[in-house]
């Protein structure tokens, strides 16, 4: 019985450590450069991939809804960045090729706290890319938060 208690106590301790480790999620102010450097690691082949929804205004609207639902929690409602995720308004992101952003979305930056988003179907990831690239135009910035 005592052995079981020791096992359970150990497991709970590890669980608490895991809770605390979430605090190691990206601190964007200190690691800003290295976080954006991930864009530079995108393979050339992925960079040249074209967005099938470029010039599609509906894709930007749909991407905005997806952003509010999946991304705003970490990157901020207006993609301005928060403690858990960097700003996506900076030139490193806005100047990046659509294919590079798509690749980052697909693969995440797992070691730095950004999860893999390949669970979103490919068209939805491209819609997100459309929205992110549209952020150069402030008119597209407002993102509704409320659900119907």
């Amino acid at each position, binding site marked *: 019985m005592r052995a079981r208690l020791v096992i359970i106590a150990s497991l709970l301790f590890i669980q608490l450590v895991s809770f605390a480790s979430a605090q190691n999620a990206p601190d964007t102010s200190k690691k800003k450069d290295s976080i954006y450097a991930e864009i530079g690691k995108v393979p050339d082949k992925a960079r040249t991939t074209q967005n099938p929804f470029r010039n599609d205004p509906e894709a930007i609207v749909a991407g905005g809804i997806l952003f509010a*639902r999946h991304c705003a929690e970490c990157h901020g409602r207006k993609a301005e960045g928060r403690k858990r995720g960097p700003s996506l308004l900076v030139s490193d992101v806005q100047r990046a090729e659509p294919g590079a952003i798509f690749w980052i979305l697909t693969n995440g930056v797992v070691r730095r706290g950004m*999860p893999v988003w390949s669970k979103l179907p490919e068209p939805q990831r491209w819609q997100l890319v459309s929205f992110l690239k549209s952020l150069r135009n402030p008119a597209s910035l407002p993102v509704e938060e409320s*659900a119907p």
Partner: protein
Amino acid sequence: MPSTFTSFLATISLLFCLAIAPAKVQCQENPYIVTYDHYLEEPGNLEIEYFSTFGTQRPGNNFHAFWMEFEYGATAWWTAELYLDGQTTFGDSTIFTGVRWENRFRPLKYEHFINPVIYVEYEHKSAADKILKEVEGHDVESDYAPSNAILRKEHNNEIETKLILSSTYRGWNFSENILAAKDLSNAPWEFGYALGFSRPLALKASAKRCSLCPQNFIAGAEMYGGLGDRYSFGLHDTSHYLAPVLAWNLPSDWTLRISPGFGLNDDSHRFLLRFGISREVSGFGSLIGNFLKGNQ
């Protein structure tokens, strides 16, 4: 009603209130009940889930088994999960049946055609546990026939490992789980499997906010069963199930799942009806971190 079960219900109620209260969070959950894919919980988020299984039983009374899951994204490559299990056997009793503590690790940095995840779980449960979250070894329907009074006397401490392999291609997810479990008493390794595939009903998101848009529904099927043990590996004296699955990811951050399962041989329960409801709590890790640091 046993006091342990009252505590169980109180805990569930308390934590469910916690789930209802805060947060606007992401929500794109797969529809599987048994099979795992390679997607882990988002770092710092806690997902609270409730699942039910209604099962037929020959001979004996049908049952309703239920469990709560508390799934926490420790990092983008590590998810930890705590389970609390219970069951009601109709015409018998309602009892708390065990605790499980699970960890999933993603070893690879990038997405590949096949993505592995390592799964390690410790279970402390009684033989009355009927949630059928996995089927292993020579688990068969008749194992669950005795009364709760008899089954709850037997307790197991078990380590369960899984190799999760999962691929996503053109919206389709294909997941394969290979299971090996060992009771920490002197028992042989037991094996099992789970296979699943699923796809959203639409791949492109709508430009309108909607609950009933097809992209919010993910449908598929899963199949799972036992593969015997170290000394008698194979399909004889094992049970197997096939279950269509459907998930509805609501824009309000709730996910509903339903899955009618059908036994594929005489050693299987004839019918299992499962459903689940879940919600994510955003920033739970930060809350705990601040609390531990005392600077809340």
